[in-house]
């Protein structure tokens, strides 16, 4: 298994890229061996053997890590993969264009361009009962412009979450094949998002880690009770929200060996058992919850029955997948309509900000709020409600990379106590 092939794409999307570019243009006049200690490991052909971690990573049976890269696992762009034979999701722009062709959507006499545009925008963002569609997505009518990923023979890497579609807790769905022939990969979120422009490699939906690099949220991983980092049948695994901002170099790359405090709120702390086989870590499913930030507002990022498959890399870190089931209502909140987003003080953010953020995001990323909400439920494949028979969560795969870090559980006051999100 390898994540190497998609690496360049992931990197060009981050805010860090230009820093790295500028820094390298200015400073990397000469090569250095000392540099290799910090640089990304070389891209290797898959599947490759796991590396042996250096001694600094592992002390007293414990090893800590901080997530330094995270993004959704998506197939390659629809244009290349043929994932969207019926075209791309039309989004708000499509709805507006369609409306403009109807009599109701024609520019009236005396109407300025500006107020005409405002009228059309209001029309497509308001449901029949007068509510804002992003705040009340269920009230919206179906979005005829939404497109799901339906293409054939699509390769998407990740973890098989339901043991080959046999779970009673699941709903019927088609599974993906990995780039190296693995079967049964569950990634229904890709089905929903794969045909929107924002989730193409040129788009901007899959770069949410930028906010992590501003220090507003982060994820820690902790292994304890480890006898041997290459092979250990039973280790304790902790997945925590990071209570400290990520520590960065001058080139804005995450620094290894920084110390971070794990969030003390039990809702953002999960522990489970895991095992390491030939340098590959996997865990028993566990519900996890992290923070995520959009437009200065915070939401939870949930993942039910989360699993990990991480391979040690020569720099002492690990890379691989974090996957599980995101509750549809939660996925909708942080990815589409900011219904419950909180401000810096932890209160419900002002409605105006939430509405504008949601509408703006729909425009920018090429979706509609109601369309997304409906599509998420349509594709949902986890946590089936026995009463309705409807699935309430959607399989979600993250590609992650972690760097060695010291995870501490001391209750120290935050560096920005009065200013942080919590």
């Amino acid at each position, binding site marked *: 298994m390898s994540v190497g092939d998609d690496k360049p794409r992931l990197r*060009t999307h*981050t*805010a860090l890229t*230009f*820093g790295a*570019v*500028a*820094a390298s*243009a*200015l*400073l990397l006049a000469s090569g250095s061996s000392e540099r290799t200690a910090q640089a990304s490991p070389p891209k290797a052909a898959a599947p490759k053997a796991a590396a042996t971690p250096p001694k600094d990573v592992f002390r007293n049976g414990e090893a800590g890590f901080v997530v330094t890269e995270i993004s959704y696992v998506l197939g390659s762009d629809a244009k290349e993969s043929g994932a969207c034979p019926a075209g791309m999701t039309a989004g708000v722009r499509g709805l507006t264009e369609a409306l403009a062709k109807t009599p109701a959507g024609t520019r009236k006499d005396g109407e300025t*361009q500006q107020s005409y*545009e405002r009228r059309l925008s209001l029309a497509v963002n308001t449901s029949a009962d007068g509510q804002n569609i992003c705040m009340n997505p269920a009230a919206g009518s179906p979005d005829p412009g939404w497109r799901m990923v339906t293409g054939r023979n699509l390769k998407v890497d990740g973890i098989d979450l339901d043991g080959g579609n046999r779970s009673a807790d699941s709903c019927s769905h088609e599974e993906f094949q990995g780039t190296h022939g693995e079967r049964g990969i569950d990634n229904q979120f890709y089905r929903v998002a794969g045909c929107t*422009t924002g989730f*193409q490699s*040129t*788009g*901007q939906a899959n*770069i949410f880690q*930028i*906010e992590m690099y*501003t*220090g*507003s949220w982060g994820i820690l991983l902790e292994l304890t009770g480890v006898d041997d980092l290459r092979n250990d049948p039973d280790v304790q695994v902790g997945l925590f929200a990071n209570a*400290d*901002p990520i520590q*960065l*170099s*001058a*080139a*804005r790359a995450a620094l290894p060996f920084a110390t971070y405090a794990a969030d003390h709120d039990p809702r953002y702390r999960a522990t489970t058992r895991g095992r390491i086989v030939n340098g590959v870590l996997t865990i028993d499913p566990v519900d996890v919850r992290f923070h995520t*930030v959009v*437009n*200065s*507002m*915070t939401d939870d990022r949930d993942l039910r029955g989360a699993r990990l498959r991480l391979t040690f890399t020569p720099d002492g870190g690990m890379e691989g997948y974090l996957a599980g089931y995101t509750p549809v209502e939660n996925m909708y909140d942080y990815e589409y309509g900011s219904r419950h987003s909180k*401000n*810096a003080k932890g209160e419900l953010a002002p409605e105006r900000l939430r509405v504008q953020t949601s509408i*703006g995001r729909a*425009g*920018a*990323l*090429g979706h509609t709020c109601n369309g997304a909400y409906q599509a998420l439920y349509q594709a949902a494949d986890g946590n089936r409600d026995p009463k309705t028979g409807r699935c309430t969560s959607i399989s979600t795969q993250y590609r992650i990379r972690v760097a060695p870090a010291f995870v501490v559980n001391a209750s120290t006051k*935050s*560096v*920005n106590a009065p*200013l*942080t*999100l919590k």
Partner: protein
Amino acid sequence: MTQLSRRTILRGMMNGAKVGMALPFLDIFLDVNGEALAATGQRLPVRFGTWIWGCGFIPERWIPTSEGADYTMPPDLEPLAPYRKQMAIFSGFDVKLDGVANKPHQTGNLGLRTGIPVPGETVHAPTFDVLIGEVIGQGTRFRSLELSASGIERSYSFRGAGSPNPSEVSPVALYQRIFGEGFQDPNAAGFKPDPRTMVRRSVLSAVTDDRQRIMKSLGAADRQRMDEYFTAVRQLEQQLDLQLEPPAKVDNFTMPKAPDKTVIDADVEHVMVNHKLMAGLLAQALACNQTRVFNMLFSDTASNLRRSASSDTHHTLTHEEPINPKLGYQEQVAWFAAKSMVACRDFVDALAGIKEGAGTLLDNTLLVAHSDCSIAKAHAVEGIPMMVIGSGGGRVRTGYHKAGRADAASRIGLSVQQAMGVQVEKWGTGSMDTNRTVTELVA
């Protein structure tokens, strides 16, 4: 002076690398309250201003590939090439958030201007232009002038939380405000020396009174050292003496004509016209001492600029336009970014077009041009592009590119305040807290 001075150490040093500093640093001819000495021996006021453009830049088209004086002018800065020697380019200086929520287009911009990032517009301190205005802006008709070229009446000059200085958006209204009722012939205005300056002058006299007695008690070497001290005090006295003289007359001042009415909106072509008109009026106002501090908002931080017949604004394009895979960046966004630098040149042209003393108004102005973010689609506040243009009457050195290497952007804010005579040794909070003057800019 034969001894090693701070400047001897710092001049030409840039992190160990040599940087040519062609312009002489005329600190001796400066005082602390915003005056430069004209060739005639009269004093010329020093001005400070900011020029903001929204939505950042395309790094590969804006950041010079090398540091120092001999950089190759990057494509997007090409319009400013005529001012190469009067311009210092600062790349890679960050607004450090320390986990403060990043309110796009606000947090970075106000963090840069106040030294304290805040998750919105509720600033925790005045913006640096206000702090500088308190030192150099005294005694002029307008404490500062705020202008906005794209029809938005806001500014990013804050006296405190909830107290922004609103912007003038219309060239016609701007003309009325400056040159309409209340305008006086700049050469006729009476001059009253500041009594505080007079007292400071008498303080220094008391300090030097004892000179002979002290000198007598010293050995030869110490006498020489003491003599150097008194020489330095003498220079301070001369600075104060200068302030007690009336300011230089404004040469060849002619009343500007009222501009014609223009269309005020966000169409970039209209904005360019209004911006140029306002820059010209502002330059005239500065020349005849109506104000010494200004803030020009070329485009709002969430830039509302648009091309005619297009409903996409610069800002929405940053979020919606796909990256051109051949270029590696967003093409239309790049167009706006490049256009912003053309506008910047227009603005600098207006200042450089007015003769003053042996040079131009630009020479006696320190202009900080900056944006609100680096890469707008990511709202990145790391490496916000900044420039210092004009030497502020010799108070800052220009003519080079300096890479910040993720240093705090507050270093620039601190340095320009110090150059303008603000008594500040450290500035900013948290990771933005700095006492490190950018020594290439000001020693």
